[in-house]
Each structure stands twice: as C-alpha cells, then as structure tokens.
C-alpha cells in the first residue's frame, strides 16, 4: 500500500506542472497565439466567480442557520434508534449528516472526534473515510450549476443525496471489515 501511495503522490506532483507548462508548450508547437488565447480565456474568470455568488450565498446561509439552530442535535436523537437497527454507530451520525452540507463543518468534526476518541479509534477512521470519500454535495451543486445559471436542478439533489447516504454506510462497513471494529 505504501509504495502505491508514494507512486501516486509522486505522479500527482507532476500533473499540475504538466498542465501549466504542457498546455502553452503544445500550443506554441501548434502555432497558437498562446498569450492571446490565455488572456481571452482568463477574461471569463471574474464573470464566472461573480455568477456563482448568489447560488453560493443561498446555499451557505441556509445551511449555516440550520447548524446554528441546534437542529442537528435534535435530528441526531431522532435518527439514532432507526440507524441503530442497521448497525450505524451513533457517534458518526453528525458526520454523516453534515458531510453533504458543509466541507469546513465536516473537517471540524473530524478534528473534534480525534480530540475526543484519539487517532486510533475506529470512529475516527470511519469519519476520516467519510470525509475523504465524498464531496460536499450542496457546494458542488451551487458552484457547478451556479456557474451556468441553472436554477432548476431536477434530480441532481436526490441523486447526490442517495449517493452520499450510500457512501456513509459503505464507509462504516468497509472500515469495520478491514479493521474488525
């Protein structure tokens, strides 16, 4: 595992420089006016960022309110007995709920859990796998759809949430399987 990881992380050092250097170099080779092309494309950067703002604000403030209201604790209490039936540990419920809502929130939860249970605990392993194996769905939706002005997202949210729920369960099971917790 160690060598595979080293190889991959070594490779990932080269991907970004390859893009940064390779694209203009290849463009030059193909006689593209690279500087002009670059500036032409980069012009869009500001507009795209500004276009995202309303979508991001809408999503972030609603989620922030929800987290500040203490609704999470109540939700945890309600869902606990149900999830206990399928072997989902109560300690990980906050993480499972917050993972699709907030990236910084779930990172903070991993830190909390390390402080509370210690690095070696099975719960921290599960939480880390949850953190590492999934993206913040609502952030992705806001940014990607916001950038092109899509307001009617159709089945994007249910599909994302189904996938998230599945990933949370799979995280618990794989860690249990691998570490015999």
């Amino acid at each position: 595992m160690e060598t595979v990881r080293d190889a991959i992380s070594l490779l990932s050092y080269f991907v970004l420089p390859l893009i940064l250097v390779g694209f203009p170099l290849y463009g030059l080779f193909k006689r593209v006016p690279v500087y002009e092309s670059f500036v032409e494309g980069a012009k869009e950067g500001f507009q795209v960022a500004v276009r995202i703002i309303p979508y991001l604000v809408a999503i972030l403030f609603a989620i922030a309110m929800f987290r500040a209201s203490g609704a999470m604790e109540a939700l945890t209490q309600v869902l606990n007995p149900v999830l206990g039936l399928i072997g989902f540990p109560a300690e990980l419920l906050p993480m499972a709920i917050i993972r699709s809502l907030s990236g910084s929130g779930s990172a903070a939860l991993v830190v909390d859990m390390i402080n509370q249970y210690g690095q070696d605990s099975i719960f921290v392993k599960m939480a880390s796998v949850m953190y590492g194996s999934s993206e913040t769905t609502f952030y992705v939706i806001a940014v990607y759809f916001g950038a092109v002005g899509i307001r009617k997202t159709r089945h994007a949210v249910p599909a994302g949430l189904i996938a998230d729920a599945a990933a949370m369960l799979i995280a618990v099971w794989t860690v249990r399987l691998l570490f015999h917790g």
Partner: protein
Amino acid sequence: MLNYIWAGLIISSFLFAIGYDIRDISGDKYRNGQPLLLELAFPEGYDSAARRVAVEIRIAPDQYASFYRTDQAPAPSYPGYLLQTKEGTQLRFAAGSKLPEPLATIGKVSSSRDGELQGLLTGFTPPGGTAGVVFEPVRFVKLNAIASAALDFAKTGAEIALGLVGVLSLFLGLLKIAEDSGIVFALVKLVRPILRPLFPEVPADHPALGMIALNLTATLFGLGNAATPFGIKAMEELQKLNKSEDTATNSMVMLMAINTAGIQLVPPVLLLALMGTQVNTLIFPILITSVLGMIVAIVAARLLGRLPGYRGSDPNRKA
C-alpha cells in the same frame, strides 16, 4: 426538490431555534436577574476612589453547579476587574477567560464589543469577600445565533466565490489554449469510449467530453483547485447543448453526481495533516468507498432521470 430542501432548512432552523429558546426560558437556564455568588480578592489592594480595580474572582464549584443546575465546573479563579459606572459597580471577567457554560454563552451574548463577561455587583462591601453578580438578562440565544450565522455565511459565500477569481482565470486561460491547440479534441477521442455511455446526449466529437475528462483527472489526483474550473468549463460546454436556459439536462446531473462522489487516488491534504501516516491505512477504504459511492451516484442519476416527473422536465426530451 432543492426548493423544498432549501426552504426546509430555513424553516426548521427557525422552529428549532425558537423551541430551544423557549425551553431555556421556561427552565430559567440563564438565571436572569438572579445574583451568582462569588468570592472577590484584591491582589493589589482595594482603592474605593479608583475607577478601575484589578480583582481575582473565585467561584465555588458546588455553588456554581447548584445555581445553574449544570455539571460544568469553573476554573479555580479568574482574573478580572471592578469598574465604577453610573449604574453601580461593574464586575468584568478578563477577555479570553475560559468560562464554563452557561457563563460562556452569557458572556458571548451580553459582552457587547469588549468580549468581556460583565455584570453588576450586588451586596458588595469593600474590601472584598463574598458578593453577588447579576448579569444582563440572556434571552433567545439560538434565535440570535441563526440570524448572525446567516449574515456571517452570506459574507463567506461571496468571499469564497471572489477568492476563486484568480484560480478560475488561470485555468480558464490554460483551457482556452488547450481548446485552440487541439488538446481538448485529442482528449475527446481518447475518453469517448468510457464517457460516451454516461453522457449519451453529448455528440461524439463535442469538447464537453474533453473538459469532463480533465475535470475527472484533476479530481482523481486531488487537485481541487484545478478540478473546479475544469468542472465549470465542462458545465459551460454542456450548457451550449442545452435547449433551456435555467433547467439542468441529464448530462449535467450526471456530471454533478460523479463530482459529488469525488474519487481521489491521493487522500485529501487535510486528512494527511490531521492523521499523519495513519492515512496510509485509510487510502484503501477511502478508495473503495468513493468508487462504490460513484457507482451509486451514476445509477441514481440515470434511474431518477427516467422517472416520469424528471423525464417531463428534461429540456432535451424528444417531443
């Protein structure tokens, strides 16, 4: 769906906040208007003429526990000072004191701009000894909290978006070179056999497939900074194929679904920082979980798109 979830988040946060606040008020959690007994000592002596006197504040743990009906315990002593004001003698805890709940909350809500927990002294007879302190009444903590959270994160949202300007410009510029020089087109040919089945609406030679490939590659190598601009560019290409201005196509939902699964060969930098070498043992479970999660995402996006309701709203449906 997003409409209901969004409204649901806002409405439920209001209901929960008001519920918790009413519970706190009816349980008299903050003991509004009642004096908390504490012990005052003056390390530099007491001077009744001075406007400001340093003081050491001691709170008996059992006294504290029974007063606030909590199992939290205060520290042995807190630094602070007395301040003579128009309303009477004010006791202030030094800013940054590690206060137990609910004092910490009282401090946060009522401390105004100084960041110091403050209250009026009662039954204080110089020089020192036992006295009571009455804090400003604390009500509707959660209601205030959700309002300020909303304002804070509105600001955060704009900051995140504007913070992307530089990186977006960089990668959108590079992508333009890639388009003009034919890299994207070459990439399209390469990834067509894999991506075509997932994005059947996209014509075989369309640059969208190349952008999607770049987006997925960047994600795979944990290059979040590059993945987002590539993903946005892929969305723009998909939008060119969209007959509607504001409604997502099946391909867009598929791209979003694959991205939320976020397959990475390299563990996130943050995990590496938190877990150190422990991460090595987690790479395998992370990879399994995200691959399985992505499969679920793809199947869910595909199957949900076939539901009558979502099929009816498909901007590219054949009339």
